[in-house]
């Protein structure tokens, strides 16, 4: 309980630091602008800025990264409303209803509902985030190597089972990520593996260049398959803010969306899109105006926006509380924290709670900034012609390469990003999940270390390893997800 209250008070206390405030403001602004560009995506917006965090203190880096995430989740719906193109996949339902309203000349109504529900979703989920993440600190002394192995295993299979349509390709994808993480020094005996005579491979491959390749570069290469400009709507734009009655009508949808979004966000593999879809359907079920859904429903926009913004804070629960990223974007955040020497998990919450305070400061500060700048930015973006897609893609690609180079001033790291990017591009094209590969890369080393360390701890008795009560429960849960994934994969194959 003490940590729960101190997370808020200390988080707010951090916000009196003017340098941190500026960093959070810049992160929020960058997030809105990046997310507000069609195809910008959370991963790309975050990727470009990760190298900059190495010039910051760990507290500033955590707050900055989370402020970007908050900004992206707000910004991604602006092009969804104005162009019918979601900035990120989770805003695709806003693109349907929001764009319909925009075409009817009710742009202000769509943007206003989006503004209020996004912020409400953010605020509510920050409280849920702290309430759910703090109890995880109690696991510090209950968790030894076997429990950590089981947890990492669960994180991996959950994502594979929930993300992919083809379970086998999902496991192979995770295997590709794990393979990258096995290069270099053995975690138990310091023997060199797969490094040959290459000096740079001896110490292993850093996760950031690999993740930026797998997630960001591959996405840019995929987008480069087509060249086009966005069509803009030429009609009149009415930017009047929604009335109180209209906002009141959305209250239930916002509340439902916030709860569903937080819970789905906290489930590895589910991510914001799943939460947004469930909330949208739930809002339609509860609504008295079901016929409006898909044709410009303000409740639909409210549910979708509240859920996808709440999911972002939910995402951080397993990421910071257990060290298990819930998806590709949170894998990037986790990798950045690891390079800063921060190892997210129950131990971090107990030993360095400042990181939790920094997370609260980042999310809370960014949300407060959005209260003041969110609506003006949305109004300005409604009048600004969209940027040239080709120029943005070329510059973002360069920023990623230069960013990787700046990590350790090594062209070898940039080469690793290029190789991972090409692998990721083909993975995307042929149904192999890059998010699973990213997770495999982040969790792979720990998975091996805890399995081998745990077996040694249990004096080479595998039965004692798997029958420790907490380990057994987590492993059973993991088996449950494997079965679920198999059933889902089988059904989808039969349906084709």
């Amino acid at each position: 309980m003490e940590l729960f209250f101190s997370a808020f008070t200390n988080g707010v206390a951090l916000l009196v630091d003017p340098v941190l405030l500026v960093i959070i403001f810049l992160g929020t602004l960058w997030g809105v602008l990046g997310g507000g560009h069609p195809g910008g995506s959370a991963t790309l917006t975050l990727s470009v800025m990760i190298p900059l965090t190495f010039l910051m203190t760990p507290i500033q880096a955590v707050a900055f990264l989370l402020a970007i995430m908050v900004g992206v989740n707000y910004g991604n719906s602006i092009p969804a409303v104005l162009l019918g193109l979601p900035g990120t996949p989770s805003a695709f339902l806003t693109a349907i209803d929001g764009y319909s309203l925009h075409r009817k000349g009710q742009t202000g109504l769509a943007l206003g509902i989006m503004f209020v529900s996004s912020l409400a979703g953010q605020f509510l989920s920050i409280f849920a985030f702290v309430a759910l993440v703090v109890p995880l600190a109690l696991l510090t002394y209950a968790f030894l190597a076997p429990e950590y192995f089981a947890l990492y295993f669960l994180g991996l299979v959950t994502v594979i089972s929930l993300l992919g349509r083809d379970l086998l390709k999902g496991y192979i994808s995770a295997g590709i990520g794990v393979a990258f993480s096995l290069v270099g020094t053995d975690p138990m005996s310091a023997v060199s593996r797969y490094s040959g005579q290459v000096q740079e491979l001896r110490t292993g491959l850093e996760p950031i260049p690999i993740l930026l390749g797998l997630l960001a570069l591959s996405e840019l290469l995929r987008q480069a398959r087509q060249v086009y400009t966005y069509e803009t709507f030429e009609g009149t734009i009415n930017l009047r803010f929604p009335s109180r009655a209209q906002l009141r009508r959305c209250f239930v949808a916002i509340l439902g969306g916030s709860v569903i979004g937080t819970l789905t966000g906290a489930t590895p593999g589910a991510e914001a899109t799943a939460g947004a879809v469930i909330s949208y359907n739930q809002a339609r079920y509860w609504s008295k105006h079901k016929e409006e859904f898909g044709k410009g429903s303000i409740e639909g926009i409210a549910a979708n926006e509240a859920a996808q913004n709440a999911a972002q804070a939910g995402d951080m629960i397993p990421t910071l509380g257990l060290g298990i990223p819930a998806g590709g974007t949170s894998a990037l955040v986790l990798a950045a924290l690891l390079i800063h020497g921060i190892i997210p998990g129950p131990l971090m919450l107990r030993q360095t709670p400042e990181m939790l305070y920094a997370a609260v400061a980042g999310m809370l500060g960014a949300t407060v900034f959005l209260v003041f700048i969110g609506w003006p930015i949305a109004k300005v973006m409604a009048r600004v012609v969209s940027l040239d897609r080709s120029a943005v893609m070329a510059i973002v690609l360069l920023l990623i390469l230069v960013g990787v180079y700046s990590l350790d001033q090594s062209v070898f790291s940039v080469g690793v990003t290029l190789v991972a990017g090409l692998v990721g591009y083909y993975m995307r094209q042929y149904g192999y999940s890059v998010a699973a590969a990213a997770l495999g890369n982040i969790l792979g080393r720990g998975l091996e270390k805890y399995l081998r360390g745990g077996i040694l701890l249990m004096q080479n008795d595998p039965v004692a390893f798997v029958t420790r009560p907490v380990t057994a429960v987590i492993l059973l849960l993991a088996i449950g997800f494997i079965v679920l994934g198999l059933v889902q994969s089988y059904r989808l194959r039969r349906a084709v």
Partner: protein
Amino acid sequence: MDRRVDLSIAVVLVVAGLAWLYGASLIRRTESVDPIGESGFPIALGLLFVVGGLIIAVRVALSLRRSHQPAADGVDNTDEDAHPVSAKRPLLIWGACALWVLALEPIGFLLATPLLLAAELWLLEFRRPIPLVSVALVTTIALFVILDILLKVSLPVGPLAPFAGRVRL
């Protein structure tokens, strides 16, 4: 997506898995009490690639025989329907990036980067000469100023070292 490429990727996976297993056989084992050992995980991973690749290959081959349709299933088509697709463009852009990596240290950031940007923009059909050159030069100079001069991230300057040395001061 073409199922024949899907099949080729499955074959590549099998070959990569075999190579990975060969690599695992070269790992030196220490005399520790660790029952899994240094090569346990790599072997498991190699087997996943080989067996997984074989299963996918057989599955794709069977579906090809059944339907004679070259389109792969289970793969989301993420391309926009209304616009032409170029499968070569991403590879050419990747090649330009690879050349940039190779040229970065010999010719320096200030010469290699505008060339990379110009090549990328050209490939992405941004071909108006003045905007193309402007974007390439302005972005390069802005990045150099921000990273090298303000943030003190040392970027390679190649033959422009004497000039860059004066600017850095």
